[in-house]
Each structure stands twice: as C-alpha cells, then as structure tokens.
C-alpha cells in the first residue's frame, strides 16, 4: 500500500539514478585533475593510511596540488575505492550517489514547504536538471553541499514543530563545512538570515537552539586554524580579483583613467572618482549580478564544459517561465517559503562573485531552489486553469515539452558534449599512461612535458597506472612553487619537466610526451593520443631515434 502510494517518487528516484550512473566512467568525457586527486589520495589512504604527501589520515584538509582540499569528499571516496577498487567509477560514485539523495531531500523539503504534488514535481525537475546531473557525475565536492543544505533546512523547518530535529539539522550543517569552502561563506550568512526572518519560531526553543549552536561551533573548531591560515584561503588568494591575476587588469584600467583625468582636473578629484575601492565594488557587483543572470543559467554555459556544458545552458528553457511565474505568485501570496527560498538564491553567489563569473562548481549550491520554485509555478499555473479540458491540454503540452527537453539533454550530454569538451577535461591521460605502461619493457625513462597543462599530469599518472602509494612516497622528487602550488620533478623514472627538454638532455631509452605541435623533430611521433573531436592531444616520441636523425642531419 505504502509502496503504491510512493510509486511516482520511486520512479523519479530511479530515473535520477539512471541519469547519474549510466556510463558514469566515460561521461563526462575525460577525468580532470581534481577527480584524479580525490581518487588517488583516497586510494593511498585505503592502502597505507596516508595521503600523497605522506600525511597520516589528514584532517580537516589535505594538501593535494597545494590547494588544500577539504576532506569530506576524500573519505567518501576512500570508502568507495575500498569497495570498487581505484577507478573513475569509484571516484565519481559518492558524488552520483549524493546526487540521487539530493532528489529525495528536495522531495522532503518541497513537501514541507508546500504539498506532495509540488514535491513530486520539484524532485522530478531536480532529477532531470542538466546542471544537477552533470554536477553529480563529476567527482567534485561542491554538489554534495546541495544535499546537506537541503536536508539541513528540511530538518530545521521540521524542528519548528518538533525540537528533536534540531540536532539533525545542526549535524548536517556542520558536515557541510567539511565538504566545500563555498559553505564557509554561504552557510553562516544564510543561517543568520533565516534566524532573523523566523525569530518567533526560534523563540519557542531558545535554549535548545543555543545549546546546539554551541555544540555545532565546537565541532567546527578543528577548522579554525585552516580558515585563518593560507591553507583555507589558498584558492581565494589564487583566484579572487582582489589578490589574484585579474587584479592587474583592474589596476591598469584605473591608471589609464586617472592619467587622462589628471591632465584636465585636480589630482585629488581624479583619485576620488577612480580608485581601487570603487573599482572593486563595481567588479563585485557586476559579478554578482552576472552570476544570477539569465546568461549564466540559460545560455551556453562555459566553453570548457567544466561542471557544466559547452553547448547548452545548465537549465532547461522551459524552466524559465515556470520560475518567473513561481516567483510572481509566491510574492503575490506573500508565501512564508519566501523567507527561505529568496535568501538562499540571493546569498548563493556571494562567495563565487569574489572570484569571477560562471564558475558553476561554486554556484551550484543554489540547487534545488530554482527547481522548487519552478515546480510551485507549474502547480500554481495548472490549478489556476478552471476548465478541465484546458488543464488536460496544458498537462499534455508540458509533458511533451519536458520529454522532448529531456531527450535533447540526453543526446547533448552523451553524444554532443564529449565531442566539444574532451580536450578541456583532461581526456586522453588514461590512454596515454596505459600506453606508456605497456612500453615499460622497452624504455627506461618517460618524460612528460608540463606545457600541455599546468603540471598536474603526475596525478593522472599515479591514478591511471595505480602506482603503489608507498613506492610513490619513497621515489618522488618535488617542491613547492612560490604561490604554494606543488611543482613535480619526477617519480622514479617518470619525469615531469616544465616543457619538452632538448633531446640531448634526455638519457638513452626514453620516451618523450609533448602536446600537439609543441616540438618539431625530423622524425614523427611513434604514437598519438587524440581528443574525441579528432584533434591531437599528445604526441609520444622515441628520443633515441630523434637523436639518430639529428646526427644524420648534422653530417
């Protein structure tokens, strides 16, 4: 009986699982550096209990490339690799699984905010959401936040009626802090706003609330050294417009304007109207609004397809009218759910805007709010149609539109996207390192040029050849660059120079791997790895035959 009642929900969850698990190892095409890092560090922990830097059970962060990732996703992957072994599938598994969980969490939250029908619609929309599907399929920690925040808010609202839910809510929010840094900015602001907007509800259980807040803070204490040191802010320092690379563009712009201005006006005036404070504010505000704009969500997302798509938007176009309608009706009715949903949407880009625009991994904690609002909009629209025939026609049309959109999305994701994005998603390393592994009987040294992509190839090597962690730790030669990123020199007979060294610098019986057209030798490569669109990704050269040919030419 109960099963029958929830048949629709089960179908939706099954659909979400198919969309997230089918062909998980190959789609998204390629396997990016962060994925390989999670996979290999997890593998290393299951084998020897240490991460790639030899740190025993790292907590709360592990160094990885020098970006000091939080450990939440690491230990989940450790469980998954100990079950499935080290593979792309195992690395992506926790993300995909939590993606399915999020669908259920969305159902719970929407049901709590509105009703069961809206909850079913919302969970359907998040189950088929292109953005959520692709985020779930990448082994990347940010999409886990959607689950923890959604369920945490659900428990919090529940707690307004039954106090016992408060501790679950608190636990979920605390965990979120250990998963991805976006939570560090978002959650405190979001929870504070919710607290302010629901004062009367909170007043009822002041004591418990205070108790669990204190307990929560205690559990967050281990993070404090991380938050206040370079380790916590590494990404911020590397990427924000205040301290990162884009800063110089802003400074130049100010200087040009000031120069032209001070030819005609007092310097004091020019300094007041053109200065870094005004420029930073302008940049931040512009980023913020772009991050919330139609373009970000409905136009082709990002040329690299990272955590998104190169050839389509992250939302369906049909969600737009539903979203607008949903918002209008919510505002018109002054619905209490607004006090949760609106701050969620408005605060989501607060952190991402410091670094720039269209970083979909930093924005996706906005999910599943747009889907819940769209589901509400659809429901409001349908219930507003008085004529039964009209309503049936509307349902039929919407079913067709959704089915068609879903089919198009599936074609886009499985067939079209890989063609356009494989080169940006580190496609080819698996083929490359498998090939090199097969050559190990004929060659002694392997040189991989770092020009192809900024010196993280070593992790791809470790991952795809399943290098023994202990062997790695005892044979690695590496250092830290000035900006804190790791600079890899070699792992035993695998060398990772900044760019292709001259053949004379390479010992006998070596293979050299370069990017396409990076070098120009009299003899061609002995092997090539191609991207899915047919372009050459890597070229493998036999160094001895290059030397022989050079010698011949000299004579």
């Amino acid at each position, binding site marked *: 009986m109960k099963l029958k009642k929830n048949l629709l929900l089960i179908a939706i969850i099954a659909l979400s699982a198919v969309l997230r698990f089918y062909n998980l190892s190959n789609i998204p095409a390629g396997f990016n550096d962060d994925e390989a890092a999670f996979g290999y560090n997890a593998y290393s922990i299951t084998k020897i209990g240490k991460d790639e830097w030899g740190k025993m059970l790292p907590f709360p962060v592990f160094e990885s490339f020098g970006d000091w990732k939080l450990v939440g996703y690491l230990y989940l992957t450790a469980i998954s690799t100990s079950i499935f072994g080290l593979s792309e599938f195992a690395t992506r598994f926790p993300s995909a699984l939590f993606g399915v969980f999020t669908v259920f969490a969305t159902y719970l939250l929407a049901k709590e905010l509105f009703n069961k029908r809206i909850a079913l619609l919302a969970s359907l929309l998040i189950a088929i959401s292109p953005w959520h599907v692709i985020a779930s399929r990448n082994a990347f920690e940010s999409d886990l936040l959607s689950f923890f925040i959604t369920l945490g808010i659900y428990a919090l609202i529940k707690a307004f009626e039954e106090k016992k839910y408060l501790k679950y809510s608190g636990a979920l929010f605390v965990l979120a802090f250990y998963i991805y840094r976006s939570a560090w900015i978002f959650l405190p602001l979001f929870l504070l706003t919710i607290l302010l907007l629901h004062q009367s509800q909170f007043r009822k259980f002041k004591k418990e609330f205070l108790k669990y807040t204190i307990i929560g803070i205690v559990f967050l204490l281990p993070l404090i050294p991380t938050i206040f040191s370079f380790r916590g802010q590494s990404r911020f320092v590397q990427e924000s417009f205040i301290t990162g690379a884009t800063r110089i563009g802003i400074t130049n712009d100010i200087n*040009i*304007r000031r120069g*032209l*201005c001070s*030819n*005609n*006006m007092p310097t004091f*005036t*020019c300094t*007041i*109207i*053109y200065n870094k404070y*005004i420029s930073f504010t*302008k940049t931040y*505000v*512009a980023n913020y*609004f*772009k991050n919330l*704009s*139609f*373009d970000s969500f*409905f*136009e082709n997302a990002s040329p690299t397809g990272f955590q998104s798509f190169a*050839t389509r938007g992250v939302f369906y*176009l049909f969600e*737009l009218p539903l979203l607008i309608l949903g918002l*209008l009706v919510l*505002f*018109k009715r002054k619905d209490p759910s607004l006090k949760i949903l609106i701050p969620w949407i408005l605060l989501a880009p607060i952190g991402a805007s410091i670094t720039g625009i269209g970083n979909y991994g930093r924005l996706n904690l906005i999910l599943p709010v747009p889907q819940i609002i769209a589901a509400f909009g659809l429901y409001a629209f349908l219930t507003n149609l008085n004529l039964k025939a009209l309503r049936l026609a509307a349902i039929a049309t919407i079913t067709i539109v959704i089915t*068609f959109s879903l*089919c*198009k999305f599936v*074609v*886009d994701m*499985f*067939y*079209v996207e890989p*063609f*356009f994005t494989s080169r940006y998603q580190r496609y080819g390393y698996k083929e490359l390192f498998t090939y090199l592994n097969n050559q190990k009987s004929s060659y002694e040294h392997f040189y991989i040029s770092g020009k192809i992509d900024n010196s993280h190839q070593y992790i791809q090597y470790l991952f795809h050849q399943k290098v023994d962690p202990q062997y790695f730790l005892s044979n690695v030669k590496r250092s830290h660059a000035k900006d804190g990123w790791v600079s890899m020199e070699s792992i035993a007979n695998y060398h990772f120079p900044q760019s292709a060294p001259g053949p004379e610098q390479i010992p006998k019986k070596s293979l050299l791997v370069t990017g396409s057209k990076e070098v120009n030798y009299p003899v061609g490569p002995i092997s090539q790895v191609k991207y899915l669109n047919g372009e050459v990704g890597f070229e493998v050269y036999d160094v001895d035959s290059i030397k022989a040919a050079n010698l011949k030419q000299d004579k």
Partner: protein
Amino acid sequence: MTFFKKYILLAIIMLAIFLRFWKLDSMPIGFNDDEAAFGYDAYSVLKTGRDEWAKVAFPTFESFGDWKLVGYLYPTVLSELFFGKNVFAVRFPSALIGVLAVISTYLLAKKLFDQKTALFAAFLLAINPWHIIASRNAFESDILIFTVSISVYFFLKGIEEKKYLLYSFLGFALSFYVYRSAWFFLPLFVSTIIFLHRNILQKHKTDLLKALIFAFFLLVPLLPTVLTFSGQSRFFQESFIYGVANQGIKNEINEKRGACFEHSKAFFCKMAYNKYLSNITTYVNNYFENLSSQTYFTKGPANGYQSFSNRGLFYDFELPLLLVGIVMLIVKKEKAAKILIPWILLVPLGASFTGVGNPGRLNIMLPAPQIIAAYGFFAMLTLLNKRRLKGAVIFSAAIIITISLVRLWTDMFYFYPKISGKYQRYGYQELFKFIASHKNDYNQIIISRKNDNAKQYIHYMFFGDIPPEKFSDSSFTTRYRGEDKWQVVEKIGNVHFYPAAPNLEDVEQKTLLVTEEHEVSYAQEPIHVVKYPNGDTAFELYDLDKVREKLKVTDDQL
C-alpha cells in the same frame, strides 16, 4: 507647485541643457556616417527641395540604401536653416529633443506618482549617460524617447480629460515617422496599455475610437514603405533569420548534428537540432540578454555607437533603485505598473530579432527605468522609519550621485574621445576640408575605401561643400546601387573612391592618394597626415608624383 520646487525643475533642465549642449560639435568626437547623411540630405532639401537622390523625401529617403525615415530629416532642415550646414546644426535637434524628454519625463512621472518622484526621475534622465550620448549624436532613435513619453503622458491625461487622447495618438502616430523600432514596439505597447485601462476607457469609447482612426489616417502614407523592401531593408540586412548571423547558427546546427549522427538515428538528431529550435533559442536568449544587467550596467559595445565603450549605459547606483522599484510596484500593486512594466518588457521584442545590446534600438525604453528608479528610491525611504536613517541615506545618495556625475564628466570628455575616434569616423572632417582646398592642384584624388565600407562620399559632400545639383549630375558624379541595394559612389568630380589603393603604374600624373595607416608602404613620406585624438594615424595623403620620383631615384641608385 511651490516656488522652491519650480526652481529645482528649472535647475534640472539647465543641467540637462548643459550636459547635452556643451561642446556639442566635438563630443561625441568625429561625425558618423548617418549623421553626415542626415546633415547632407537636409542641406540638399534646403537647397533643392529634394534629397541627395533628387527625390522628394517622404516618408523615407534612400540615403545609403537603408531608407531612413524622415522624422529626423526635417528638423535638421530647420536647424540648418538657422545655423548653417555644420556639425552643431545637425546634432542640434537631437540635443534639443533630449532636453524636452527631461521635461516630458517630469510630466509623466508626476502623472504616475507624485511631484518629488517626478523631479527625481527628471534628474535621473538629465544625468543618464545613455540618454546624454544618444541626445548628442544626430541619430533618430532618441527622438522616440520624447515622443513616446509625452504621448503616454497625454494618454493618462486623456483618461481624465478626453480631449488629450487626440494629442496622445498624434504623438504615437508621429513616432512611426521617426525610427523603425517604433513600428514594432508601439502597436504592441499601445494596445497593451489600452487593454489594461479598458475599464476606465469605457467612458470615452467614442473619443478613443476617433483618436485611433485619426492615428490610422496619419499612418496611411507609411503603408507602402512598411510593406516593401524599403521598409524592411534593415531587418533583412541585420536579423539573425535572414542576415549574416544566420550562417553561424547554421554551422552550429551542422556541427552538433554531425556529432549526434555518429551515435543516434538521423531523424532523432534532426528533431533535436534544427533551425526552428535554434531560431527560437536565439531569439529568447537575445530577449533576455537585452533585459539583463550586463547590457545596461557593464561596458557598452566596443565601437561606442550610441553608447560609451568605456562605461555602462546606466549608473551602477540605479540598479538597486530599479530592483526595489520593480518589487514595490508589484507588491503595492501600483497603477503605474500597468504602464511601466509593459513598456520595459515589450521594448526588446523588436531589438531581439537583430541581436543583443544595440543601444540605438533599445533606448526607446527610456525614461521608464528612471521613473521606476526614482519611485524605488522614495519607496525605500518610506520603508526606513527612523528619521536619522533617512537623513543618512539621502546624504550618502547625494555623495554617490555627485561622484558618479563627476566620473561621467571625465569619462565623457577626457577618456572617451581618446578611444572612440576610430569608430566615430573621426578625421573625415579634417581630411575632406583639406581635399576640398587642394582639389584643384591635382588631376585626380583617390580615396581608398578598404577600411571603411564605402560611405566616405557623404563626408566629402558634407565637409567639401558639394552642391546637391552636382551630385545628381551624372557627368560629374558616378554612382549606382550595388547588388545588395547599398549604394556605391565611385567618383565625385575629380575625387575617386577606390576599393583599395591602386598600383602606382596604373595612375595618371598629378594624383593625390588617401589611405589608412599601413595600407601602403612607400619610401616617400606622406604630404599630410590626419591623426586621431590619441595620436594614432587616421589617414595618410601621398602625392603620387613625388612617390614615383623617389622610387626612380632609389632605382637609379641601385
């Protein structure tokens, strides 16, 4: 109106005049093709009663083949009658109507809300970067800002006093003669506002009908234009359905289909990727981008046409006011929303056929955002219940606005001219004045049009004082319509327009050659160089006899 408030309005109008007329002839720098076309055709009408093609200019004139509407032409005739044929005179009507738009904004906002909102809205329009630059260019689109806002004002007044309905529809009808964006926007907008006010209008059914018939009667002369190529020329040339952008859409479809064919049935791929879906998606994308914050608050298009390439169209501080304004309009269910919301939502419907962020096609939206922002500001103030807080907000608003205004001033007069010369056809004035005074020293003067698609002739006619009769004299001028219906001018007197610089041996004695920088490289220095304000070279003038002489000397030396 109190004495004090009267003076505030007067001060706002003075400020509007100052921001629009100060250095009108040199800011925007240069004088673009359309400005020169209006200027010369107006001059032609003034002298001969006909346009440059010796046709009666009504309701359109051919110009470059883009068939401009005459709404801006006749005001320019009048202006040239007073001020003569010069840059200032051509821009004068636009700047003047820009000031009138500030007044009509005041009237409209007062009708929609109250006097203080009206004053603030008028102030916001007076200092609005987009409106200032649109008013300063001699371009017809900004005239609509005035005609539409005053017509809406009369429409609202007409609801109370029916006689004003006639004025309202007179204004709407005249707008059709000004710029084509009105053709698409006004029918939709006017029918929407009539529909939304249908209950009140019930009272004046007959008067409304009379006004509508009167308007249709005024529009009859336009019908042949609307229904023929001369009406749709721009649409064909620029829309993504027929224009150049269509090719990009086709290529993308083919590429995606190709990737899809490898895995899936052809039928399925064609369902998923086809021109209908792509055209709809492009249109919807354009529409929303045309309403997005990027279009109005981040940098304008690089060529700075009808906008600033170095700053946004609006001030950043207007954005929060606008958002608060819109939310409050909806929450409070203000009557004004029935006018302002359709206005903003309908404007991009037309512009979205051609692309994103074309400021000249979107500025018909003004002054609706300013009125909403002004309303938003006062709505925000009433939300703040503490008096001291209110004072603080007003004080910081004053500081922010002052800084923004000073910033606009330096951006506009000191920074913008340095970077916009190239796109605003700077240099033609100096070039053609030079040529006009030296043309008798040479047998022929050759101007390479390699870097500027063939509209230099209009600058020569304007700055070189070529009489209109001579232009239609086929022994003096060689001109024809090209295949794509754009017109091509090959020669005016001894001034020839070549597709590119000719070979030295193909040119007769006593020839002066004009090229852009780096188009040719001769050992001989140019006899004259025209420079952009930032010091880059715009044009080089070579006496080809001297070039040949130098070449001979070097050959001999070798």
